[in-house]
């Protein structure tokens, strides 16, 4: 059994780095839900668009042009952030703003429509084929030989983990201390009252979508580089998994998104480690249904009392 612990450690690393991917996307869901109580169904597609803009930038610059890989990654990130945040803003402006007062079903269906629209928008532009992303981040951060079993973590995975942790801390601090952060918290408590107290609710909501899109863009580029393959449909599955993470952690709470992401990543990894791998998705969907039934407010979320 001497290889059990190293293998367990390797699976732990796999789980955490997968969890980081989910957390990065989950924060977009959590912030939007926390503030206007709506599941932004199109958020998975915003992540996908981030990946595509990153790839377009890389292809435009051309990997053979002799720039150092890290510069290319930074350039891809910068442009992806700029463009995808605009998409995030545009989604809110066109599809959700005018539906704010309407019954809960209406904005959700509009979000589903937006998600289908973006998927096919990219299919028409870049075809539905799998496009390979140049491998810019290669090599391994570390690899330890533990009793004949090599535990290692690739640089691209390590980068995602580090970036996610840094972003999470930054966003949590921002929400707690910055002026706009306070406004976000006020809106999430009671958006009508916040409006009455002079907070420009539209600006806060737009900001939330932009921030969510920004994080999704970073996720899109980094994950694209790590998996080295993107297609117009990666947003759908990643979106559902990220939403599961957000709900697991407690929808509406930013640290919850991170905890939920890490937990879901670990659960999926160990599920495919000990069960046949094909049941991995079943486990995560099962987990989602169980959480929503037992504790819809999730681990760190605040339970919502139904006001009569």
């Amino acid at each position, binding site marked *: 059994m001497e290889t059990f612990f190293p293998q367990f450690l390797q699976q732990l690393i796999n789980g955490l780095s997968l969890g980081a991917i989910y957390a990065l996307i989950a924060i977009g869901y959590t912030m939007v839900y926390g503030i206007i109580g*709506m*599941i932004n169904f199109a958020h998975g597609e915003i992540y996908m668009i981030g990946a*595509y*803009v990153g*790839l*377009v*930038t890389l*292809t*435009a610059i051309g990997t053979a042009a002799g720039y150092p890989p890290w510069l290319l990654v930074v350039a891809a990130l910068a*442009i992806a952030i700029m*463009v995808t945040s*605009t998409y995030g*803003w*545009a989604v809110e402006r*066109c*599809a959700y703003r*005018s*539906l704010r007062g*309407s019954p*809960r*079903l*209406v*904005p*959700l*269906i*509009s979000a*589903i*429509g*937006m*998600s*289908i*629209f*973006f*998927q*096919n*928008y*990219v*299919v*028409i*532009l*870049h*075809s539905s*084929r799998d*496009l*390979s992303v140049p491998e810019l981040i290669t090599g391994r951060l570390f690899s330890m030989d533990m009793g004949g079993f090599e535990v290692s973590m690739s640089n691209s995975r390590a980068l995602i983990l580090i970036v996610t942790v840094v972003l999470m801390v930054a966003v949590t601090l921002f929400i707690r201390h910055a002026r706009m952060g306070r406004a976000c918290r006020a809106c999430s408590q009671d958006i009508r009252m916040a409006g009455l107290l002079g907070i420009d609710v539209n600006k806060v909501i737009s900001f939330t979508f932009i921030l969510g899109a920004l994080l999704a863009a970073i996720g899109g580029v980094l994950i694209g580089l790590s998996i080295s393959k993107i297609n117009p449909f990666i947003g*759908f599955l990643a979106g*559902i998994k990220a*939403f599961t993470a957000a*709900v697991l952690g407690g929808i509406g709470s930013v640290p919850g998104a991170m905890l939920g992401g890490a937990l879901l990543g670990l659960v999926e990894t160990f599920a495919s480690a000990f069960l046949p791998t*094909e*049941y991995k*998705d*079943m486990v995560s*969907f*099962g987990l*989602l*249904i169980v959480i*929503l*039934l037992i504790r*819809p407010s999730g681990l760190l979320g605040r339970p919502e009392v139904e006001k009569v």
Partner: protein
Amino acid sequence: MRETTKTKILKDAFIAAAVTAVLTFPMVGMRLNVESTGLVLHKNFLWPTVAVLVVFLARLVLPFVLIPKVSVPAAWTQKAVDYKKWWLGAFVVLALVWPFTPLGSGAMVTAMTMAMIYILLALGLNIVVGYAGLLDLGHAAFYAIGAYTYALLNLHFGLGFWEALPLAGLSAGLFSILLGFPILRLRGDYLAIVTLGFGEIVRITLNNWDSLTHGPDGINNISKPTLLGYEITRRSRVEDGTTLWQALGIDYNHIYQQLVLYFIAFLLVVVAAFLISRLVKMPVGRAWEALREDEIACRSLALNPTIIKLTAFSLGCMFAGFAGAFYAAFLGSVTPASFEFIESAIILSIVVLGGMGSQRGVILAALALTLLPEFARGFAEYRMLIFGAVMVLMMVWRPQGLWPASRRRVELPS
């Protein structure tokens, strides 16, 4: 025009144009393409520049031109007179006659048969989403359960379509109660996500459970429905069986089989539409709508919300089961690939486009969305794009849908 408003409009126009540029130049203008030499970027900035100009001019002109609020005059939709079911009659006559007009080509009959299947699915989902207000994103799961129930009964027990049809509806209804009971107390968007999760679980189970469902290969050679006891295929599957055509003494033509399938689908739709229109007028139908309007008020009037939701959910899923059984017979083979989330999204968009809680609207929308691609073949590529866009536009401009139901008028006894 004070100086400030003019510059403000100009500023707005520039911002809008800039935003459009950021949105379109990197994505629309630069298209990735796989070529033998690898990934290549096709730069063509025509459309993005057009888009930017259009937006810029629109923002300039917009403030001056007051676009009349496009809304159909209330009187027209909310017609006060209580007309008998003219729309159901018109739909029946049209659906019976058109195959014999020059339009009735093989491809059109097949497309119409698929449209009938989608109408059946949408009518079922309309009970769940339209009347009871429960957003179900996993309707394709019950569509699949119905299809696989018939396929398996046909494969293992040799049951024909007509014997298996009620069982398919029953099994879909049963599964919906099994799922429904725990999840129906969830609030709107949580319920949506749980049903979506359930839909994916059903699809993955069908794909992985090789011993029962033959996994990805699916089940093939499913027998077609029989008409008046005769088989409608060219050669009977049973040695001495006589086909309908031999009985009628006419030689086989493929379009005959398609027509029979089309009429069976149409029959299912008419029965479903009639049943549902009765259900909606009954107390249970009123309870659905009341639940959609205000669950708390319902509870305060002694209506048990769980029971009402369960009836709506199980009936809706039962119709999806019937549609699934017919789809299996129509296609002759069933694989998990036909029941992905996109099917649930299509059925939902039909209900939404038609007008939630409006049978005639749903039928109109189903016909429109399944037949449009037939007319414009090139359009097929943009079909899903337009689907998504239409769902958004409908919610923004006309949440009540294309042809909303009008409230029934009741004569009060003096």
